[in-house]
């Protein structure tokens, strides 16, 4: 029956090609959405791990999220630094949702401010320009499209862009703007000596009252959970994409099965069982969906550039795609199953 199956695939090449393209695009979108959901964690991991800390000390009020504004006195930094096992500690002030205006434009762009101690943990390594060296200097993520030598307005102050960093975004692609801690405090806390995190090299045995010690992995997890509803929405949409793919394949198979009613009757009259015919149709479905999955792998690479956010299509997701596609194909066959079982070999005479 394999010969019949592949001959039919070839015979209906146009019909199957349309299905492959349709299913491929849907699967590509599903894969991109998968990458989008994973991208939230990937961007948070890149930013948090980029600090180089072995531990983080945060306010209990922040519930483990580095982006939550759980401020505490900067004086706690010294307390943490004095803890045995801590080799280095640096204060960080993180303020999400600040508007910047680039030179030559009037429209604001939303950024997250990160106040860091120049030379301390969290002071980012630049890919262009130089690190923060003085007040009113900033290093920005490349997504902000700033250039060293340019200026950005934040509040009523102008800041000089001295360096560019890559892959420093949070909260779904919001670029980070790094500036000296004092400048950030002036901008965010009115100059009061408050911070939202302490990054440490070495792990403190205990934290000052009201603060908690967390591993980078925990910080990444808690910080990403802030986007839980967005991730859930994307996951839901991704599930819908799978369903749409299954419906397209099912529809295509159903139409093919309708076209082949006489063939099924003849094949049954020639000795084929319903199981053999179902197997034939299942192979067609699997061939279509697996080819569509391969198309999706390629198309998804182009789709990632369409998103402002980080899209991280993991190897696991790529590996899972053809497997899920295979399952989708088999499920889609059920739509045509009745057409096969109801085919009466006596109809071959009719």
């Amino acid at each position: 029956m394999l010969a019949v199956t592949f001959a039919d695939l070839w015979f209906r090449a146009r019909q199957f090609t349309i299905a492959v393209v349709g299913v491929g695009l849907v699967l590509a979108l599903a894969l991109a959405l998968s990458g989008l959901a994973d991208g939230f964690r990937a961007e948070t991991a890149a930013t948090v791990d980029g600090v180089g800390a072995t531990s983080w000390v945060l306010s209990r009020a922040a519930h483990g999220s580095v982006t939550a504004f759980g401020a505490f006195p900067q004086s706690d930094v010294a307390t943490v630094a004095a803890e045995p096992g801590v080799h280095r500690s640096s204060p960080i002030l993180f303020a999400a949702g600040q508007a910047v205006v680039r030179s030559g434009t009037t429209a604001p762009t939303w950024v997250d401010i990160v106040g860091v101690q120049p030379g301390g943990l969290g002071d980012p390594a630049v890919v262009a320009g130089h690190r923060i060296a003085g007040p009113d200097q900033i290093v920005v993520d490349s997504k902000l499209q700033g250039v060293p030598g340019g200026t950005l307005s934040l509040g009523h102050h102008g800041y000089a862009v001295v360096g560019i960093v890559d892959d420093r975004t949070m909260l779904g692609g919001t670029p980070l703007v790094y500036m000296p801690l004092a400048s950030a405090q002036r901008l965010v806390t009115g100059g009061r000596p408050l911070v939202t995190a302490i990054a440490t090299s070495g792990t403190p045995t205990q934290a000052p009252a009201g603060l908690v010690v967390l591993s980078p992995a925990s910080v990444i997890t808690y910080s990403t959970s802030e986007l839980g509803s967005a991730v859930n929405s994307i996951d839901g949409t991704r599930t819908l994409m799978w369903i749409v793919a299954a419906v397209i394949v099912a529809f295509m198979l159903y139409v093919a099965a309708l076209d082949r009613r006489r063939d099924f009757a003849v094949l049954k009259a020639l000795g084929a069982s319903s199981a053999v015919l179902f197997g034939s149709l299942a192979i067609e479905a699997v061939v279509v969906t697996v080819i569509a999955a391969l198309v999706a792998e390629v198309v998804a690479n182009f789709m990632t550039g369409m998103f402002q956010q980080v899209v991280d299509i993991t190897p696991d997701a790529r590996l899972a795609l053809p497997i899920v596609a295979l399952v989708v194909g088999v499920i889609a066959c059920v739509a045509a199953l009745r057409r096969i079982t109801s085919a009466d070999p006596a109809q071959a005479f009719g």
Partner: protein
Amino acid sequence: MSAHLGVEDLTVSFDSGGYVIKPLDGLSFAAEDGELVALLGPSGCGKTTLLSCLAGLLTPASGKIRFGDLDVTGLRGPALAAYRRETVGVVFQAFNLIASLSARGNVVVPMRLAGVPRARAKERAAELLARVGLDERAHHRPGQMSGGQQQRVAIARALVHDPPLILADEPTAHLDHIQVEGVLRLLRELAAPGRIIVVSTHDDRVTQLADRVIELAPNFTDADRAPEETSLGAGDVLFRQGERGDLIYHVDSGLLEVYREMADGSVESLAHVGPGNYVGELGPILNLPRSASVRAVEDAVVVGYTVRAFRRTHPHHVIEQRAYN
């Protein structure tokens, strides 16, 4: 297995929208080894139904089909599947080739389904296509072949297991006269010792070649015979639904009831026909089985006329189309 075919009192009935339809009702015939048997009759007389029964694709309501030592009507499950696969080859009216496969692919399919190795199946397909004169068209799809060529591929496919019984359903129906000649010659050649060919047809050319002709519809040849008077007692049945007849009945006296027998055993009364009226006209006119039964409600006398005689003797009667006749 000696190729002897016996059909005894075969009846097939089915439910059509609540009514009982009997395309075959008590049919019996026999065919001997090497014969070409023609099943003759108009459309709807049960030719295809009979072929379906002979092919083991349809189970009759009653009666027996024997082929050699096999009680075909008693076969079930794997034995029936083996009978279909190994004993019977079928040539369908509309060729029924798989459009996506080449001529060779179509001939190979039944062999692959029976577990014949691919190489052997291809070799056998080449032999059979050569036998039907299509060795040079082996790689053509059905859409690239004429009707006659497609029918010859269908015959080659029917021969793959060298079956002792070949059934051909209206094999000349879609062919022009040149193609018909080739197909008929092939069927005639195939009817040889060790094999019986059964061909359903309403093509006279097939009956000329046949060793045996089975008429599935009565042949009412005397269209001018004299009217027949029939007396009926109350409850007597004049004719039954599904029967064939060539007479239109004029009611001279008494009262008749036209009724339909339902699949669930009940009876649906359709009309009552009294003196001066007639009943049973559409079956004879259209050469179809009676679509309803007629019985006497009280003692009655009716006169049966052939269609021609009825038109001649009752020119004032306009024959109406009535749903129950």
